[in-house]
């Protein structure tokens, strides 16, 4: 085992590592560490240095291990990084295992009582008397646990030379307005900083230095972004049932709507209903969509399973509704607080019988916003359920992003006929393909015209919406629905290409894998493998996707599931290219990282 001495020597050779490392804070949930971690992250962000934060929390309310990872990266890589450089080991339950998993030469900050130095000596240990410092900070026993979190912020800040003014600013933002809280926390941070100044000798390579890479950027989680998208999409009826990791989408939407969607007279231009379960949530949303509202619901895996029957009704009787799936690890209850993309195939075919749903795949918080807007237009344009699948990683973690753009396109309410139009037309058949695009016209209940009414059913119906069991009527309907799905290829978000000179190898990914893939492309380039990368943003696939696969000898499909669902969907879309489609899967519940992708690809390249 390398000794620390040797290690430090080596360090000094290699010199400083600036703005390129990851910090992991290990605590127990419910201990209030979230706010101090945010403060630490924001402080660095405010110094102009790109950061990202990932919270690895248990499906439990208090007392179980939680890890918060802050990645600091001057090049703007904000995906998860596999190796931890700096560990703040505050949780005795996991401390030993946490230290063991560190790479040699890493840094470990821990309560002196843990004696972690006895576990490994090839790691730089800073041992801090947190308990004592906490006692000195406050006499209120109940506050000590909380303030301990702020004390480590002070210690870490001092060691990394984080600008204290930024810490002060970050605390002010975090506890905005609450003077007492601000002072208390500032005081605690100072306590940690001063103690560190006095007692700790900097013996590691990690430093933060000011940059200007975060000017004008925002930090937000994907659920908040999606909520904003819904609000600016003009959503009017929202139904939901709480479930991790989707709850915070509707909960933040409630707050935003309350602030921005109440009229002069104090009345709401929306209705938000907490349903009794997901069957009811989507049932309400479908009823609302049928009646003309821009309606949505939001859920995660188990809720999607419960929505299957109604999803089929929406598809077959052509009712607009937007369904967010902030996906988590399944099957069943699975790992409610871990991330996954494994609902993809199920969403695409959700419900019994021949069914094909539109699915949007946001790859960033910005796209959570944009695609929310997009989703409502698509659902009303195509009169069908539209699923937006993000995941726990995008949805609940904090991401750096450019500010969102205000939608220029006016709302697309689709083919809705009002009384005047009916009068002009003198004729209305709910399910006739008038325009040859597979999309019929509809009317809304309440339309004051004798031609307006029609009867909606999930059973067999002809072009006039009349009940039928005729073989030809059924085939016509099903073929039209397929045509409609084909038409959608022209409307859904097109894929995004990131190409490299002379690349023969392609990479396809979607959703939250994006930043990791981009980073992996650099690693691959460095390893001598230039790649082109296409990020798919929706089902059905568009011609750009087909062209991309056409143009590459080998295409690696990177995804966060066990069964290579996206790879399979692509194979079914382009059977002639099945064999050039290879798979890189990551499905342990942690957000995907660049290294795993790079290794996964290089390994197969060897063969």
């Amino acid at each position, binding site marked *: 085992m390398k000794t620390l001495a040797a290690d430090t020597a080596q360090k000094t050779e290699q010199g400083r590592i600036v703005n390129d490392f990851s910090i992991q804070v290990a605590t127990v949930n419910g201990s209030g560490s979230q706010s101090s971690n945010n403060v630490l992250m924001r402080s660095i962000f405010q110094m102009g240095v790109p950061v990202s934060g990932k919270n690895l929390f248990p499906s439990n309310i208090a007392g179980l291990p939680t890890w918060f990872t802050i990645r600091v990266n001057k090049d703007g890589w904000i995906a998860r990084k596999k190796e931890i450089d700096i560990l703040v080991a505050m949780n005795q339950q996991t401390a030993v295992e946490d230290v063991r998993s560190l790479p040699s030469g890493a840094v470990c900050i821990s309560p002196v009582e843990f004696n972690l130095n006895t576990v490994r000596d090839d790691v730089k240990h800073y041992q801090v008397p947190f308990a004592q410092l906490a006692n000195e900070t406050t006499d209120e026993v109940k506050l000590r646990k909380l303030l301990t979190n702020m004390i480590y912020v002070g210690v870490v800040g001092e060691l990394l030379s984080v600008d204290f003014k930024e810490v002060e600013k970050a605390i002010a933002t975090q506890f905005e307005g609450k003077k007492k809280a601000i002072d208390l926390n500032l005081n605690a941070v100072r306590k940690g900083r001063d103690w560190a100044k006095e007692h700790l000798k900097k013996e590691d390579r990690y430093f933060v230095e000011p940059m200007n890479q975060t000017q004008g950027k925002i930090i937000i989680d994907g659920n908040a972004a999606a909520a904003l998208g819904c609000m600016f999409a003009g959503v009017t009826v929202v139904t939901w049932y709480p479930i991790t990791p989707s709850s915070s989408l509707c909960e933040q939407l409630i707050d935003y709507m309350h602030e921005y969607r109440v009229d002069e007279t104090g009345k709401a231009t929306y209705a938000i209903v907490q349903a009794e379960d997901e069957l009811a949530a989507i*049932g309400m*949303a479908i009823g609302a969509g049928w009646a003309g509202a821009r309606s949505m619901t939001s859920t995660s895996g188990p809720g999607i399973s419960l929505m299957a029957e109604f999803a089929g009704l929406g598809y077959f009787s052509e009712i607009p509704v937007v369904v967010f799936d902030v996906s988590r690890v399944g099957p069943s209850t699975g790992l409610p607080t871990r991330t996954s993309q494994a609902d993809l195939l199920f969403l695409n075919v959700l419900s019994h019988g021949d069914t094909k749903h539109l699915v949007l795949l946001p790859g960033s918080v910005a796209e959570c916003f944009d695609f929310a807007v997009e989703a409502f237009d698509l659902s009303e344009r195509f009169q069908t359920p539209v699923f937006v699948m993000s995941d726990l990683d995008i949805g609940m973690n904090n991401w750096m992003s450019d500010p969102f753009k205000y939608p220029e396109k006016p709302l697309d309410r689709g083919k809705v006929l009002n009384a005047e139009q009916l009068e002009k037309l003198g004729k209305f058949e709910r399910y006739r393909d008038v325009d040859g695009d597979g999309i019929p016209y509809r009317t809304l*209940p309440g339309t004051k015209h004798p031609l307006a009414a029609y009867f909606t059913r999930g059973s067999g119906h002809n072009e006039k919406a009349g009940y039928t069991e005729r073989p030809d009527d059924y085939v016509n309907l099903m073929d039209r629905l397929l045509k409609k799905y084909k038409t959608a290829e022209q409307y859904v978000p097109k894929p995004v290409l990131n190409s490299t000179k002379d690349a023969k190898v392609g990479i396809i990914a979607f959703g939250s894998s994006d930043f990791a893939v981009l980073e992996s492309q650099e690693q691959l380039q460095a390893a001598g493998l230039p790649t082109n990368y296409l990020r798919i943003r929706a089902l059905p696939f568009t011609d750009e996707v087909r062209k991309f696969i056409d143009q590459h000898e080998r295409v690696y499909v990177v995804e966060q599931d066990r069964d290579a669902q996206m790879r399979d969907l692509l194979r079914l879309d382009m059977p002639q290219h099945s064999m050039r489609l290879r798979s890189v899967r990551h499905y342990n519940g942690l957000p995907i990282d660049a290294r795993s992708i790079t290794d996964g690809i290089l390994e197969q390249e060897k063969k």
Partner: protein
Amino acid sequence: MAVEAKSNRLGLSLADYKGAPSTLCDGCGHDAITSQIIKAAFELGLDPHSVAKLSGIGCSSKTPAYFMSQSHGFNAVHGRMPSVATGVSMANKTLKLVAVSGDGDTASIGMGQFVHILRRNIPMVYIVENNGVYGLTKGQFSATADLGSKSKAGVVNDLPPVDLCGLAIELGCGFVARSFAGDPKQLVALLKAALSHEGTALLDVISPCVTFNNHEGSTKSYKYAREHEVPLHDLGFVPFFEQLTADYEAGKSHEVTFHDGSRIMLRKTAKDYDPSNRDLAVDTIHKSARDHEFLTGLLYVDEKKPDFTKLVHLVDAPLATLPQDKIRPPKSALDEIMKSLM
């Protein structure tokens, strides 16, 4: 009286309230209820374009196709009509919701949503066409089948029935009535009252299934219902747009006035009954069950309970048709939010 009128206050005729021809079995109780819905809507002068018809799945749930073809209708999935109704109500609170369900659709698969729509008090008329069996799937017992009732095959039901009215009152429903497809006079009065009520109005209507549950030994047959019906009172309904004539007042024991000014007069039959007394209602229902009476009439009313559209403080116009400028906040709003996130 309106009953004889050729056209109603909107100048519409009875025919304007009819639907497609029924495909139900001849004599099915559901068809009898359909005609009373048509009659009630016609006599009240409902605007067909402001009515939304809702149902689940079942023979009963097919009936919205058989009345008011000028109204939009939605035949949803089995047991989940209440959630669809809730969404429709939120999207357009100016619509009058007329929902038809069956005992299987409501009391078996639909129980969860039934309970929660009552809890929310969504403004709608909720008619359960109760025949104690699953008609459309050929006569299996539903959750309202009475203990000891015999199936056509001779099987005796050994599970207690769910009493939809007792349940609705327990859940705080503000309008609870029970009637019989074979008692058109009472039914039409209750339908009109229900259509005048502001929250959820539950009508549990015994509606015999002539094909699968109308035999000896059935407790939901025409014969059984006729022999066991005990009307709590005689009913007279006076819509808000009509003068109160003396004959209404005659012998009335109680009267209920609805938000639109319409009233229903209760003339006592056997004993006096006050439909605004919740405990009395529950005890009376339980007693009738013990005595194997088929109790009909307006069991409970509470006109004070706010309906759900009030609780969500909706704007006056239907959400469905609000213009873009009302539902998409201005750019300044987004800028403000973005700032706060920097």
